[in-house]
Structures are given as structure tokens and as C-alpha cells.
């Protein structure tokens, strides 16, 4: 260990400030500090990843699982081709490009709702003279603090056609205006018919959307509230002197000044929603007919239900490539909007 002797310390005391500082930051061996973490990551992160890449070129399956079982056969790009050509007969209705497209659509449709609703509620809560602000802010944080796993399972039961709270609530509301409760026997998760003609999305998608809107907007509200409170009142003052209406002020002052804070939050939301395993797996289970399945739930099914470890490893490689592209694109966007000169 590089402990300092008296002589060394004295030498440093007499040296000019900059040299002393520089030498200080060079004294300790930075690699020594890195060693524990890098050792753990080498074993638990990088080695499994490298092993996964190798697995993706083999037919690794149940037969190779035992400690002294034979090594899997090398199959080249077979797994990769099988996934792209939907040649995975073990999973009914497997369609890679549909799942990828749905996953992207799922992500962006959700984040748009999160941002729009989140910002509007933040603006509403920021109104001067509004009563009970603190109470509302305290309540609206609840969807963030409750674990997603629990939220998803609770909503799964709430969407139950016979005993779920959603249908029971709709029936009681409908009863007030004389609609028969039988109308509200809605099969949220299982129904195959697209509720909106012309849009090939099952009702389960909308059930997931409702659940995720409930989950997602408060985070955007918190980020937007922080940004709103840092906007100088002078802007609004100047605008109202110049005769700008509140609507004009919203679009010309509030929105542009919210942007620098919202862009990182949106990027965070995009990656989170893209990989939102818990919601899809627990609420709809990917159904009906895999129509609401996303990439990460498919990857899990390949391992958990089918024991197709080689195919699953190849599937994970596709996920990695897609996420890399998404990250590069969002990083470029965030860099372009990093600073906003007023």
C-alpha cells in the first residue's frame, strides 16, 4: 500500500500546489480500487455474456444441462436464421418482426401518454393559488413507490371479466344512466376482436396501456415540476407585459424550457418501457395469441418454458443489437438538446 512517509509528505508540502495535487491523485493505485468490482464483473457479467455469445451458435438445450453431459453441437447461424424466419415451432404464433414492431409501438405510445399527461398535471399543480397542492403531490407519488410487480398483479385481477374492479366499476357507472350491467362483461385480456375497427390491436393492449399510464405519468410530473419551478418568473412577466395569452405563454415559454429536463426523463422512460417485463408478463401474459408479447418476455419464455438455451442466447443478441441502436439514437438526440440557451 502506498502510504506516505514523512519525507515524501514534506517533499510534497514544499512542492508547488499543482504538482502536489497531481501527485496525490497518482499515488494510490487506481487499479487496486477497481479490482474487486472488476473481478466480480469478470466472473458474473462478462464471462456469462461471452459464454452466451458462444451458446448462440450452438444447439444448447436440456440434453446439455447436466454437469457431465456432452457438449452442444455447433450449428453456426442456424439459431439466428430460425428467429428471423419465425422457424421456432415450439412457440405457437412466433413472429419476430411483429413482436419487434409491437415492442416499439408499445414503447412510444406509452411514453407519449406519460409525457403529455405528466406535463399537463405538473402545470396544473403549479398553478398559483391552487388549494391542497401538497396533498395532491403526496398522493400522486404513490404509483412510483409501489413495486411494479405488485401493481401488475393487482391490475391483472382488476381486469378479470367477472370479478374485476374495472368491469364492476363500469357497470355501476353504467347503471346510473340505465345501461345493463351485462354490457360491461368485458373480456379485457382474452378478447380477440380488435376494439377499434381498422386498428389491429387487441383489447389487452389497451388494458396494458391503461395500467402503464397509471404507472408512468407521475415520474414525468415530478421531473416536469422540478423544471417548472426553476423557470424564472421574469419570462412570464415579460410575456404578459407584451400581451401574450396564457396559452401562448405555455407554448412559447413553458414547453421550450421544460425540454432540457424532459429529454433525459423521456430517454429513461423509453428504455424502461421497452424492457417492461413485469407488466406484460403479469397483466396480459403476452396474450391473446402472442399479440402483446414483447422481446424480453419472449426471451424469458424461450429459456423458461422451452429450454431452448441456444435459441434464447441468439435472441438475446438481437435484443442487445436493438437496444444498442436505440441507445445510440437517443444519445444523439439528448446530446443535440443538451444545452438550451435562452
Amino acid at each position, binding site marked *: 500500500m502506498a502510504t506516505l512517509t514523512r519525507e515524501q509528505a514534506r517533499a510534497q508540502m514544499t512542492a508547488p500546489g499543482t504538482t502536489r495535487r497531481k501527485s496525490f491523485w497518482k499515488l494510490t493505485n487506481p487499479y487496486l480500487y477497481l479490482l474487486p468490482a472488476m473481478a466480480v464483473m469478470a466472473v458474473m457479467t462478462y464471462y456469462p455474456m461471452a459464454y452466451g455469445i458462444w451458446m448462440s451458435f450452438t444447439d444448447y438445450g436440456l440434453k446439455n444441462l447436466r454437469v457431465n453431459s456432452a457438449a452442444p453441437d455447433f450449428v453456426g447461424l442456424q439459431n439466428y436464421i430460425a428467429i428471423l424466419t419465425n422457424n421456432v415451432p415450439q412457440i405457437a404464433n412466433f413472429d419476430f418482426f411483429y413482436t419487434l414492431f409491437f415492442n416499439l409501438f408499445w414503447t412510444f405510445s406509452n411514453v407519449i401518454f406519460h409525457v403529455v399527461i405528466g406535463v399537463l398535471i405538473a402545470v396544473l399543480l403549479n398553478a398559483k393559488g391552487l388549494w391542497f397542492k401538497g396533498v395532491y403531490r403526496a398522493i400522486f407519488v404513490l404509483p412510483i413507490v409501489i413495486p411494479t410487480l405488485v401493481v401488475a398483479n393487482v391490475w391483472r385481477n382488476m381486469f378479470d371479466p367477472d370479478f374485476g374492479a374495472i368491469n364492476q366499476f363500469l357497470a355501476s357507472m353504467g347503471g346510473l344512466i340505465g345501461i345493463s350491467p351485462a354490457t360491461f362483461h368485458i373480456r379485457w385480456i382474452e378478447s380477440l376482436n380488435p376494439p377499434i375497427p381498422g386498428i389491429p390491436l387487441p383489447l389487452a393492449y389497451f388494458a396494458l396501456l391503461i395500467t402503464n399510464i397509471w404507472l408512468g405519468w407521475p415520474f414525468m410530473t415530478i421531473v416536469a415540476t422540478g423544471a417548472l419551478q426553476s423557470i424564472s418568473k421574469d419570462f412570464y412577466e415579460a410575456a404578459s407585459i407584451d400581451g401574450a395569452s396564457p396559452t401562448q405563454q405555455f407554448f412559447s415559454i413553458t414547453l421550450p424550457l421544460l425540454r432540457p429536463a424532459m429529454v433525459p426523463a423521456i430517454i429513461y422512460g423509453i428504455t424502461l418501457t421497452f424492457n417492461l417485463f413485469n407488466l406484460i408478463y403479469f397483466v396480459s401474459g403476452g396474450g391473446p395469441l402472442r399479440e402483446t408479447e414483447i422481446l424480453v418476455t419472449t426471451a424469458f419464455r424461450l*429459456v423458461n418454458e422451452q429450454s431452448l438455451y441456444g435459441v434464447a442466447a441468439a435472441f438475446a443478441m438481437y435484443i442487445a443489437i436493438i437496444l444498442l441502436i436505440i441507445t445510440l439514437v437517443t444519445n444523439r438526440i439528448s446530446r443535440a438538446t443538451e444545452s438550451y440557451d435562452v
Partner: protein
Amino acid sequence: MSSLSAPAADAATAKIKFAYAESQIVGQKMTLPKQIFFQLILLFITFTVLFPILWVVSMSVDPRADIMRPTSLELIPPGFSLKAYADILEKPTSNPVNLPTLFLNSLLLAGGSAIASVLVGVFAAYSFSRFKFAGRQVLMLAVIAVLILPNVATLAPLFVLLNRVVIGDFNLRDSLLGVGLALLTTLLPFSIWNLKGYIDTIPKELEEAAMIDGCSPNQTFFRIMLPLATPAIAITAFLGFMSGWTEFYLSWQFLTNPQNFTLAMTLYNMTGQFASSTPWSHFSAMSVIIALPVSVVYLALQKYMTGGLTIGGVKG
């Protein structure tokens, strides 16, 4: 404005400024109809936020504790009883395992992986934050690159690799330790990155002052940096705890012995079409048991939490 002379414009601005300041002090800028309109919107939003929470809490404390399936909507229970909680204490599902064991397993898994990730991670975070060394960029990139990947992407290799670690009757894959290690795959890089983001904001001068006073670099780390980084370590550990507490797919894939099962796995067993024998009052009680402890802590730390998230996230 241009038609006004300069002093007149100044006077006009001053007047508006005064009126504005006044409205700030009084805080009564909003007219009553507008106030009522806003309150109605916010009450509706409050209702939507509280609806699922009230539904599940109400069912869990309903005195008719054996609600198989609720036939009517009750957001406020017709009484109060903890019988549903008592009922699931011995055997929440058909699996031969009791609730305290499940709770302890979840606690061990989440606590163990969270503590390990910050204990190991804080050294690396310090190194990345403070030192300039050869390979720093490459190593940092290697840490961030892992963060892009969801845990599920490494599920297959982790499963087959840990399955090969067999000592006598002990299979690492089929143990909480194995799941905890697999959790570290992505939790450790997350902790490193989150802690580095925080340490970056601590001024270097404090350590340099300690150095001038004769601290060795290692003393500086343990006596200056660690105490200063304690809040960040606590927050990072809690975020890790949250992910371990509700971890599902690793434990579901790895564990076969019911004595090792976790709360999250049990909740899945109690939900949906495969749980036709589970009364929903039991399911509700289980939901509350999982959510309540972490939600309360999260709520208490919430002010620091969103900050912690953005520190790690924005600087990426």
C-alpha cells in the same frame, strides 16, 4: 410599448411588477370557478390513482376474510380484520412453505445483493470518479454497456453456468446465493455508475485538504470519501434492494425447492387464471405484505430518490 416614453414605460412596468408581487404574497390569483374546475380535475386524478390501492387494501382487511372472488366493488371495507393476513401465515399457496420463510428469503436475496453491490461498487466508483489512468475510458464504457442490457438477456448463460457449480448435494443454481450472484450481473454495474455520478459532485478539495493534513490516500478514502458518500450509498443500496425484493424471472427460472421461494414468486402463484383456488382476499393480503415495507421506505427517501436516478441517468 414603443409609443410610450421611457419613464412612462418604467412606471408601467413598476406598476405591473408591484401588482405581480402583491398577487404572489396574497396567493389569491385564481378565481373561484377556475379553482373549483381545477379541484374537480385533480379529484378525478386522485380517484384514478387511489382506485387500485383502495381496492386491494380494502379486500385485504375485509372482515369477510374468505372472499373467493369479490361480487361487488368495495373501495372502503365494511369493517376491519386482519384475518386474511393470519390465514396466509402458514401456507400462502399449495407450496409447502410458510410466509416468514418467504419473507426472509426475499429479505436475504434483496439485502444481500444490494449490500454486496454497493460494498464492491463504491471502490470502483471512486476510482472512476477521481483517478486518470490508462484504460479508464474503455473500462467505463464496458460498465455502461452492461447497463443497456436487460437482465433477461443473460438468463440462459447464467442458468447453464451456475447449474454446473455443484458441490455434493449443493447446486449453486438452485440456491438463493446463486440467484443473488446472478442479480449482481447487472446490479453491480448499476451501483458503480450511480455512485460514480454522485461522487463526481463531491468537491475534490476536501480530499486534498485531508491530504495536506497528512492523510494517506487510503485514509482519505475511508475517512473523507466514505462518510460523505454515505447518503448516496444508502440510496443506491435501496434501489438495488427494490429490484431484488421484486425480482421474478431469475428466481422463477433457478429455484426449485419451495423452502427457497420468494414473495414475488408466491404473488405470481396467487394471481390470474392459474390460481383458481386462491381467495382474492389472500392475494390482496400478499400484495400488501410485499408492497408496504418498500413503499414506506421509498416514500420516506423519495426526495433523494428521483435525484439519485437522474444523477446516474443524466450523466450517462
